């Protein structure tokens, strides 16, 4: 063919393809009427076009695998039987012994640690040596180019997972399979071998009804070692976007909590499998693996008798006993379990006495063969499923961050410890992760305060994302066992509710700050956000913490965020203890600065607490200049107490540079801008605070109060109404002479607070609106309180002024001046 000929063929072909298949012959007829050779070529290509178009070259994912026909010592690879997260299984022929075998090649990365590999080999050899009819027979194992592989018997049949796809298993068969599994487990456990990853995928039912347990020892090779190790964080589970993570549904509580496992861990998994065979439903199955793990720790599955009617009553009891949360309360040995199940089958009937139904599943071969030395070739798998998945991912990736994620919310991380008193820890981690992500200037991150509204919510991710106006949501969980911490985080695309990414990280408490930085960085890189070099540096620089001090800091933070006067006092104590434990705990100083500032004016005289707020914030910044919260606190002190405008500006801008998603810093900067008479810029800052903190209404409240003080009463009423701030509505209405409206608002406001500061303002509204008796009654109460505790003199002065008592007003103003009230 010449280039010119091809060009003609190609053009006719392309045009033909744009038509419906039934219209193509007529079109080709017409287009090629003068050129029979052109027509012949086009027709030939059209005939095979479906095959070529279905998946051919559609994905740029290559599979690195063994080539069929490859000769590996005594074995000739025949074909790939399957592949998955654990490697590939090939069918091969043992030419020496004239038998068919299966070869499973595991990922090389698993064997980088020679100790682990050796342990795996020992265990796999031990399992192979069991030679039990209910355990897959392993003939040989070795490594190929660093990849461990095993050669085993080749079986025909299907996995229990495949059988379960068709629904529940008949009770008789459940007992039969159960007895076989229990016998296999008994044999292994007696040799001290635990499976650790028992699940329907690892149970194979042969064509003649024999159950084989697969992959003994493999779990040990693949399980995360990080719970034991210190040092670098370990990537334990990573999923493709859109996929639910691994096999969380069969983990025992002790595995979820600490990764610890003994033979009773297998018994729990076995219980979950029995449950599923009987009911056709997974015992623990939630939309996310974090929730599934929480369910394993805290919930019991729905009683089987509610799902299946005709069932021997002893059977649910056996299942229940396997699923006890506490290993001590489960069956203590697999042989006890086998015995209990055998007792249920008719007079101890064996497998062969219980004829199975004929299965209509196509036969499947699995596993088995020898010493493999293979030639590697790259082949390209054209599976429409994989291609589709990768295409989705590629489209998403290739969109870069143009159509991608520009805004996100970190939902409160779930406390998986099952202990509500550990809530502070999960909340602290949520705040830290929010702050880490907030550092990224290209990203709008919803503030902790607004995201906290979704604690224990029933809303779906798309609903939440709509309400917060974000592109994606991060959710996850925190588990803690002693000093070991695991964060599991998932990134979910809001519009589709699709998991884009999920990963678990393990660390000990000492490295907790690295861990949060790792999560934030992984998310940033996943969404292809542009990081400035400075942001990159902040996310990668973390320091070790003193576990005890950090723990105290987190408790303090939890109390501080409660915001009640008692809780703030408590928080101050905890921060101080943290500092006593470790004089370099910068975060505790920052928290202390924040706590003292929060007390100022509202609870304590600024003269008393502002210098403390300043000292703590300055110390925090000396220890770690990258703490945005500390800069924000210092900014407030400089603005409201030191009256140092340039200093305040510098601190707020520094805070915003470090964390552009910190509402407190935006509000402080807005206040600075108003103070220095830049109302338009201040308004922009308020809007920025709104965008990241839509729910707390703090910006509206601040804005309303400032509008009121600027005598812009109509606007103040509007803004205050939106924020639900009746106090400002009452005051502004009173100023406008709308007495009825003012009193109604004051009546509402007075029920919401006990703080004399707010009560003084509300009383002023009553006085201005003409309800002077009510105001005087409140004044008595307020002055009584003032003898017990601090109250901002300015507001009492205003109240006296509203009542027309100027002498008292001046007395209180002087007190206010002495206290440096703001």
């Amino acid at each position, binding site marked *: 063919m010449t280039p010119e000929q091809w060009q003609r063929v*190609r053009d006719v*072909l392309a045009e033909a393809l744009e038509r419906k298949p039934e219209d193509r012959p007529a079109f080709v007829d017409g287009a090629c009427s003068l050129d029979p050779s052109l027509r012949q070529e086009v027709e030939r290509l059209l005939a095979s076009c479906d095959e070529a178009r279905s998946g*051919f*070259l559609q994905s740029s994912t290559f599979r*690195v695998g063994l080539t*069929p026909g490859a000769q590996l010592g005594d074995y000739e690879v025949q074909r790939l039987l399957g592949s998955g997260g654990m490697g590939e299984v090939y069918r091969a022929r043992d030419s020496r012994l004239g038998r068919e075998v299966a070869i499973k090649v595991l990922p090389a990365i698993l064997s980088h640690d020679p100790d682990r590999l050796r342990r795996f080999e020992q265990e796999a050899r031990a399992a192979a040596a069991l030679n039990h009819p209910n355990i897959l027979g392993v003939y040989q194992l070795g490594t190929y180019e660093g990849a461990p592989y095993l050669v085993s018997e080749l079986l025909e049949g299907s996995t229990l997972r495949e059988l379960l796809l068709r629904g529940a298993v008949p009770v008789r068969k459940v007992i039969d399979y159960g007895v076989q599994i229990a016998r296999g487990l008994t044999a292994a456990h007696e040799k001290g071998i635990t499976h650790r990853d028992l699940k329907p995928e690892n149970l194979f039912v042969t064509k003649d009804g024999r159950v084989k347990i697969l992959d003994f020892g493999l779990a040990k090779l693949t399980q995360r070692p990080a719970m034991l190790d210190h040092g670098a964080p370990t990537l334990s589970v990573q999923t493709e976007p859109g996929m639910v993570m691994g096999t969380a549904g069969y983990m025992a509580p002790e595995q979820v909590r600490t990764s610890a496992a003994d033979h009773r861990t297998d018994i729990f998994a076995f219980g979950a499998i029995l449950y599923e065979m009987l009911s056709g439903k997974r015992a623990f199955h939630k939309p996310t693996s974090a929730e599934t793990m929480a369910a394993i720790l805290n919930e019991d599955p729905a009683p089987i008798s509610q799902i299946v009617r005709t069932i021997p009553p002893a059977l649910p009891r056996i299942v229940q006993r396997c699923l006890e949360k506490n290993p001590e309360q489960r069956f203590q040995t697999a042989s006890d379990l086998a015995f209990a199940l055998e007792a249920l089958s008719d007079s101890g009937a064996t497998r062969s006495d219980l004829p199975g139904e004929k299965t209509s599943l196509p036969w499947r071969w699995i596993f088995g063969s020898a010493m493999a030395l293979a030639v590697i*070739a790259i082949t390209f798998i054209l599976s429409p499923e994989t291609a589709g998945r990768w295409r989705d991912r590629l489209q998403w990736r*290739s969109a870069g961050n143009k159509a991608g994620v520009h805004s996100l919310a970190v939902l409160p991380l779930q406390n998986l410890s099952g202990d509500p008193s550990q809530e502070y820890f999960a909340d602290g981690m949520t705040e830290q992760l929010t702050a880490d992500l907030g550092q990224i200037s290209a990203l709008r991150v919803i503030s902790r305060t607004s995201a906290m509204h979704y604690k224990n919510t029933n809303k779906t991710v798309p609903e939440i994302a709509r309400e917060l106006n974000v592109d994606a949501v991060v959710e996850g969980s925190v588990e803690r066992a002693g000093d070991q911490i695991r964060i599991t985080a998932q990134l979910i695309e809001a519009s589709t509710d699709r998991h884009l990414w999920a990963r678990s990280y393990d660390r000990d408490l000492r490295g907790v700050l690295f861990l949060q930085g790792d999560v934030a960085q992984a998310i940033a890189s996943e969404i292809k956000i542009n990081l400035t070099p400075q942001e990159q540096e902040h996310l990668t620089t973390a320091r070790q913490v003193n576990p005890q001090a950090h723990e105290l800091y987190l408790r303090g933070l939890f109390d501080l965020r409660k915001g009640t006067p008692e809780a703030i006092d408590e928080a101050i104590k905890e921060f101080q203890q943290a500092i006593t434990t470790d004089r370099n705990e910068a975060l505790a100083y920052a928290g202390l600065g924040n706590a003292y500032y929060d007390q100022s004016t509202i609870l304590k005289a600024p003269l008393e607490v502002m210098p403390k707020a300043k000292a703590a914030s300055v110390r925090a910044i000396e220890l770690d200049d990258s703490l945005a919260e500390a800069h924000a606190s210092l900014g407030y002190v400089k603005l409201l107490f030191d009256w140092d405008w340039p200093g305040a500006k510098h601190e707020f801008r520094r805070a915003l540079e470090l964390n552009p998603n910190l509402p407190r810093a935006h509000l402080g900067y807005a206040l600075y801008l108003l103070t220095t008479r830049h109302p338009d810029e201040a308004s922009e800052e308020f809007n920025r605070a709104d965008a990241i903190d839509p729910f707390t209404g703090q910006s509206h409240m601040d804005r309303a109060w400032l509008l009121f003080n600027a005598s812009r009463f109509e606007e103040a009423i509007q803004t205050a109404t939106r924020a639900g701030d009746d106090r400002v509505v009452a005051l502004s209405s009173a100023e406008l002479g709308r007495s009825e409206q003012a009193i109604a608002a004051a009546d509402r406001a007075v029920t919401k607070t006990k703080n004399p500061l707010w009560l003084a303002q509300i009383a002023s509204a009553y006085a201005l609106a003409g309800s002077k008796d009510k105001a005087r009654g409140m004044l008595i109460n307020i002055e009584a309180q003032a003898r017990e505790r601090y109250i901002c003199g300015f507001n009492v002065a205003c109240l006296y002024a509203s009542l027309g008592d100027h002498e008292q007003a001046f007395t209180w103003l002087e007190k206010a001046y002495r206290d440096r009230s703001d």
Partner: protein
Amino acid sequence: MPGTTTHPVSELLAQWRAGDEESLRRLLPLVYNELRRVAHNHLRRERPDHTLQTTALVHEAYLCLTKQQAMDFENRAHFFGICANLMRQILVQYARRHKAAKRNAGCVMALDENLALREKQSVDLVALDDALHELAKLDPQQCRIVELRFFGGLSIEETSRVLGISPATIKRHWTTARIWLHDEISRVNRDDA
């Protein structure tokens, strides 16, 4: 590579896009070496699923070369454009070197997510490379489109951007090129058998 190390990759890339062909000459060996290094790591069977995704490789190489600098959208398409051909060279070289005595890699079976067994087609990279050489004689541009899409992992839109051709034309050329390649590879296989 004296002289090149002082020029960060992103700068060379920008210079090349601004029309400086010399920077591309200096860029290519850097990119090639890095890609080969990254590809080699992946080919050592280190991924649990034993797969190698070209987009991920190119991205990884880019990050290593630019010291973790984030990739902007324009740079990305052009960088991937450069990599597509290099990737083809690396993978085909690897496949040729490791190819079994038998000429034909044959069918490969794979399990889909439900573990139901289905037969899947597979492409022999060496055969594909031969066929691409033939296609280049008929239409070099179509050959380039296949390189960008298949070896570079570029989308239709990105390919359009790199080549300066409308997405509709890219799509048509891509479809007909695949049909031709598929036909050519089957023909050669039949002749061999």
